[in-house]
């Protein structure tokens, strides 16, 4: 069974989800520009 029920609440917050996506995309972009 998925164990994310307890930990997944950060994804329930739309603002947090957007911030996370932005951060991960920026990290990815930084890595590829190196």
């Amino acid at each position: 069974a998925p164990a994310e029920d307890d930990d997944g609440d950060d994804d329930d917050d739309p603002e947090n989800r957007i911030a996370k996506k932005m951060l991960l995309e920026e990290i990815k972009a930084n890595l590829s520009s190196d």
Partner: protein
Amino acid sequence: RKAGSMSTDNAKLFEEFVDYCTSLTQEHPEVITFLRGRLSKASPTFLSSVEFHNILSRCLTRVQKKRTKVYVYINELCTVLKANSSKRKINLSP
């Protein structure tokens, strides 16, 4: 744990913020590495400033109150550090 030119107080606050966020971002540890990278590129003047102290305090208090917004506060800090980067590009004027 090198704090560079940061004031002791700000370094302590930053480490406290990072410690707190590390446990909340275990699925993406690269986010903390990225935040530390931004810190290392920030201007020493800014790192020792009251402004940075206030932002750090605010982010730490907020993340402790609302853990579900951890990435929002990390993102906020990254943005602020980027805006105060010592390698900031100079605006080209014609």
